């Protein structure tokens, strides 16, 4: 029996994807679960695993084609097996007139409505797991207890993780002074204006080689660059009046806690970074001031029930913001796990579309590239973004219990809150930042 390869639903709200590359060609052998094709959606590249072992009998969608979920992509079967010309397709749709791709209105994959057994649910709660990430081997793709055990076993011996992208110097526009970005953005159309038609727009948003144009070298925009550009302009110039408040944080206690717990966490297979503390502080502040964990709508301010913290991750060709969902339910261990998991998968381009959605507030740690403070752009449709700069030792005046002032060397941090002035005024932003500051200064 030939098995159909169907375009899967790649996320809750993602209904289509572009078939970027076939990894197997017609006639090639493929094993079950072996990647057979690469698919690109808005921001994520992913691989489609073969649903069965066999030989690729037919390919119905060409590279570069964008198709809806449920589309028949290919057929796998035994060598010499006959491929039904219209496998399970309604007769009217069996063939595109000119023999192009055959599109089948297939039902969504059955794993869509996933249910979990009590033991799987309990283990997920105990280990703070996102079950959607675990490959199920049970009936109809069910995640079994053994699948969870195998997943946990794989987690306990992680390879020595290289430094996460946002802990390395970032190159994204988010980290540059906005004037510089928009000066450049405004300058470009002027420069290009004299001969707008002379430069053909690149047809595909995929990376193409640079070409020479009359006034310089034209580097085509990548899909992610275009997406970032659109969002930045939209947020800063067309949507939210930005305002920024800056706080100074004494990091001595947090740093001490970090140093003391790095090794014990590592022994549990958890890589603890400062980012986890920052996320925790954002959660605390957002819970104290839910007005800033919100979304402006014309009808009113929408305040979600949870704090889903997006964390900006710099990639080679741009910036991506995976989301730690329900961060208010996670302790430091849980946050550290999520931070490492999302960063690792962001770097490997293995984020799922849902990983990028549902954020209610964003954290950007621009300090890793040495920046002291910055005024980042709000990630729409959210209302606020917290920026943290580099922790540097500085002489500060501290006062002891008796009121005596003295100079001390302390690890200091500038933290900023940039928020939508439509949503709140300065006093509320400062109240948010006081909680953020207090959380880090009194960490225990």
């Amino acid at each position, binding site marked *: 029996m030939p098995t159909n390869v169907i375009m899967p639903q790649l996320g809750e709200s993602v209904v289509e994807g572009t078939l970027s590359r076939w990894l197997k060609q017609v006639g090639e052998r493929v094993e079950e679960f072996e990647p057979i094709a690469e698919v690109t959606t808005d921001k994520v590249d992913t691989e489609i695993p073969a649903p069965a072992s066999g030989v690729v009998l037919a390919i119905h969608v060409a590279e570069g084609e964008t198709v809806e979920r449920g589309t028949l992509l290919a057929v796998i079967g035994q060598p010499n097996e006959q491929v039904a010309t219209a496998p399970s397709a309604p007769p009217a749709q069996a063939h595109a007139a000119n023999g192009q791709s055959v599109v089948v209105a297939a039902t969504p994959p059955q794993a869509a409505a996933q249910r979990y*057994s009590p*033991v799987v649910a309990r283990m997920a709660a105990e280990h703070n797991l996102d079950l959607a990430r675990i490959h199920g081997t049970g009936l109809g793709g069910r995640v079994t207890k053994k699948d969870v055990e195998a997943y946990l076993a794989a987690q306990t011996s992680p390879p020595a993780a290289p430094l996460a992208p946002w802990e390395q110097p970032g190159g994204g526009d988010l980290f540059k002074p906005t004037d510089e970005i928009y000066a450049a953005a405004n300058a470009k159309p002027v420069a290009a204006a004299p001969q707008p038609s002379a430069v053909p727009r690149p047809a595909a948003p995929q990376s193409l080689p640079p070409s020479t144009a009359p006034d310089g070298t034209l580097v085509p925009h990548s899909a992610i660059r275009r997406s970032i550009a659109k969002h930045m302009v939209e947020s800063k110039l067309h949507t939210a009046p930005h305002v920024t408040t800056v706080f100074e944080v004494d990091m001595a206690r947090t740093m001490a806690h970090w140093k003391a717990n790095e090794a014990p966490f590592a022994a549990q297979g958890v890589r603890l970074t400062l980012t986890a503390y920052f996320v925790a502080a954002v959660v605390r502040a957002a819970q104290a001031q839910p007005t800033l964990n919100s979304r402006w709508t014309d009808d009113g301010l929408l305040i979600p029930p949870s704090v889903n913290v997006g964390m900006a991750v710099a990639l080679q060709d741009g910036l991506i913001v995976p989301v730690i969902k329900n961060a208010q339910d996670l302790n430091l261990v849980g946050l550290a796990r999520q931070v490492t998991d999302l960063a690792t998968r962001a770097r490997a381009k293995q984020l799922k579309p849902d990983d990028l959605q549902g954020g209610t507030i964003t954290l950007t740690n621009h300090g890793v590239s040495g920046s002291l403070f910055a005024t980042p752009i709000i990630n729409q449709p959210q209302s606020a973004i917290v920026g943290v700069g580099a922790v540097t030792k500085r002489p500060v005046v501290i006062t002891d219990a008796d009121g005596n002032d003295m100079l001390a060397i302390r690890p200091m941090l500038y933290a900023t809150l940039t928020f939508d002035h439509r949503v709140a005024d300065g006093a509320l932003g400062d109240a948010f930042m006081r909680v953020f500051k207090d959380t880090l200064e009194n960490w225990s």
Partner: protein
Amino acid sequence: MPEMTLIDALREAMDEELARDPRVFITGEDVGKRGGVFRATMGLYEKYGEKRIIDSPLAELSIVAIGIGAACAGLLPICEIQFADFIHPAFNQIVNEAAKMYYRSGGTWNVPMTIRAPYGGGIGGGLYHSQSVEAFFTHVPGLKVVIPSTPHDAKGLLKSAVRDPNPVLFFEPKKGYRSIKGEVPAGDYTVPLGKARHAREGSDLSVYAYGMMAHYAVQAAEQVAREDGIQCDVIDLRTLLPVDKESILASFKKTGKALIVYEDNLTMGYGAEIAAILSGEGFEYMDAPIRRLGAPDVPAVPFSHPLQEAFMPNPHKIATAMRDLAAY
């Protein structure tokens, strides 16, 4: 250790108990000179005489009633019901008298009686010689219900039953009387009532069974291990009442999946209680629906051979259920 059949082990247990304690006696239909319809008591009449191996009238009510009276008077009766199918005339004596005696008399009278009865199908016995009746009695507080599946356990459990101060129903899988063989220690030993036997070690799913089905479950487990690499944890319950919750739950916590096998018809069978224990006390360990494999809900075990085959759970049906559950 000598290897012997299930029925030889039972006879040896009774022989040793008769020799050990003069209070022990046996009564039932044809148990004397004839040695019982299955030859369970063969040779005992010659050895212990007509006062201790007593042929009874063809009246189960009186066999049990005599046992109750004798037990209250200080003897240790072993009553044999020729086939478990014929135990129903004695139901009132067992349920209303034997089970309640100790409670009703405020602890003054107890009934240290053992009732042996061959049960189960698969032997071409038809309607009146094939039934499984354990579920009627496991519902009754005050009784103990035991079903052995190996010669070793048969001897050790029967000795424990004879010595137990309560009425014990001792059901014997008659299909296994001569087909099940195993090593049996010579001389005196007991197997405690209320403790299940861990018949096979495995991590993929738990299988709960007793009597002939425990025997089949181990066979099926070996088959699926060989052919599919599925490792079943097999629990031979061996005492049905009181039930060994500890062993039942320990296995389930390890595997998260349970298959309960019994040859009685499915609905309201003994396995329902095991399923209730697992879901009630093992819920957080559950990884699949609890499955029961029993006989169809028809009035009796059919006499027709092909129909009897269709009726009875067997190693093949058990292996199929194991594979389905492992794949869930």
